[in-house]
């Protein structure tokens, strides 16, 4: 691994926010697993335990993460990782020690994207642990298990693209609050587009496919065609975000 990438990876994984978030997520997952399966809660929340619990529980909790919660967690983490470093005059320090801008931002992006993938896997791990604690081997029904793992992988791709988008926002705005603001705007637009009937816009909107996979096809197998189109659009967005980030970084006057 390139020294700068290793350096950034070490730096990122020192963030206490990560450990606090996952401790909270584990607690939430644990309590959800045990609470939703009590008859009182089932009645109160009108939740059919047969759907959201047991083999479906990991998918149910995945939606909880890849929606607003996970994206907001990423934006806070990445603004600390990029905007705050920039504000503290630490972002350009490697450039004073023989690094070039391209390598610097590539290292940041590699660390950020791999972090988003790792976090999705960690979320899957936590949810399977809590589900296993509550329901035991019942959760490993083969079809549901494979379907859920595929959805986790697709969520990983989506979160990586969102991470690239947040990195680009950080580079363009160079301000933590502006980045957070634009991400909130994105989340609102995302909800609007998914619930609207503007088909053309939906087809080219990156967030639409995640909503499609997790809501329209909840606890169901995703049709192959929808899957391919979604992945293709996400890859296109990812490449665009990556290239624009590289271009913008070259132009920054620190």
């Amino acid at each position, binding site marked *: 691994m390139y*020294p*700068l990438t*290793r*350096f950034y990876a070490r*730096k990122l994984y*020192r963030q206490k926010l990560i450990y606090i978030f996952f401790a909270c997520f584990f607690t939430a997952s644990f309590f959800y697993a045990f609470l939703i399966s009590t008859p009182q809660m089932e009645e109160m929340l009108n939740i059919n335990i047969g759907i959201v619990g047991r083999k479906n529980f990991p998918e149910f909790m995945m939606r909880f993460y890849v929606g607003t919660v996970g994206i907001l967690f990423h934006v806070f983490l990445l603004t600390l990782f990029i905007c705050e470093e920039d504000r*503290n*005059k*630490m972002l*350009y*320090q*490697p*450039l*004073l*020690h*023989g*690094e*070039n801008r391209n390598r610097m931002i590539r290292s940041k992006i590699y660390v950020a994207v791999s972090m988003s993938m790792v976090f999705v896997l960690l979320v899957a791990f936590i949810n399977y642990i809590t589900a296993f604690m509550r329901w035991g081997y019942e959760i490993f029904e083969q079809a549901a298990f494979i379907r859920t793992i595929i959805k986790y992988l697709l969520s990983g791709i989506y979160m990586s693209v969102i991470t690239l988008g947040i990195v680009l926002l950080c580079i363009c705005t160079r301000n933590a609050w502006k980045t957070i603001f634009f991400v909130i705007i994105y989340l609102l637009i995302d909800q609007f587009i998914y619930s609207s009937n503007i088909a053309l816009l939906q087809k080219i909107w990156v967030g639409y496919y995640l909503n499609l996979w997790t809501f329209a096809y909840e606890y169901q197998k995703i049709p192959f065609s929808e899957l391919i189109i979604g992945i293709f659009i996400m890859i296109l967005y990812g490449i665009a975000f990556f290239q624009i980030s590289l271009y913008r970084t070259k*132009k920054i*006057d*620190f």
Partner: protein
Amino acid sequence: MEKIISVKNLKKAYKKETAVENVCFALAPGNIMGLLGTNGAGKTTTLKMITNLCSKDNGKIVIDNVSLDENPGLALSKVGAALDTPSFYQELTARENIECFAHLYENIPNGQVMELLDYVGLKNQAEKKVKKFSLGMKQRLALARAMLGQPKLIILDEPANGLDPQGQINLYRLICDMAKERNTTFIVSSHQLHDMEKFCTDILILDKGKSILQGKTENILSETTNIVDCILEETNAARRVLSGCQGISLVSQKGNQFTIRLENICFDEFVKNLVANHLHIHYLSMRKHSLQDLFLKLTGGAEPCIH
């Protein structure tokens, strides 16, 4: 003569405002150049263009015979810099902070980090977290970080900011020692004009982005107009002699106290002239412009206060 850095026609504009215009200078190994100017004069922008942190609109920068435009990586490998207020990873110790950046170099020998910390007087504080450091300690640590990789040129942007007088003197001594012992070239921007006058071999004064004075410090100070205070007997005769004397001008007269500006005549010749005209000299003293006087005069600040 070997030049460590050569800057030609450097120019930078932000939208319609020109930040730096036609700045040129060159420095030999072991030189210390003081980059002076009022706030917003273009000092930091100049330093950032040299370190490639900021794009330039025009100009050429050559560092140790390597063009910054053609091979920025190689050119900047010869440069160490501490710009803006010293910033570090607050949760890490001084040693860890330097080690973070030492990993970016290929051939940093083990123990060099501690050696650098020792050099800047922070060896005993190596395991202390940076958040507990005073500003002076952070400035020293920034210097240690800038020294990583044994650069031939070190650029320091207002390194004495926030330091007490003792801290300032110690820092400048450290810079002088490095320049002498290691033949390192320094570009130091500062507002500490008295210290700059003492420590810098070269001076460059910027005003509104333009270079308004540059050269060797001793030349700059000696070439500027000298002022002589004298008390002479026989006021009228003295006045007659002085008005007939070539190369001087009378600045002021109060009784038999005269203030004279030596323009095209040296001090010794002036004294000989007075003696040759049989004037009794009660008191004679030559004053020189300090760097601060010059700076204020050139940048259109307050009237120079002559000491």
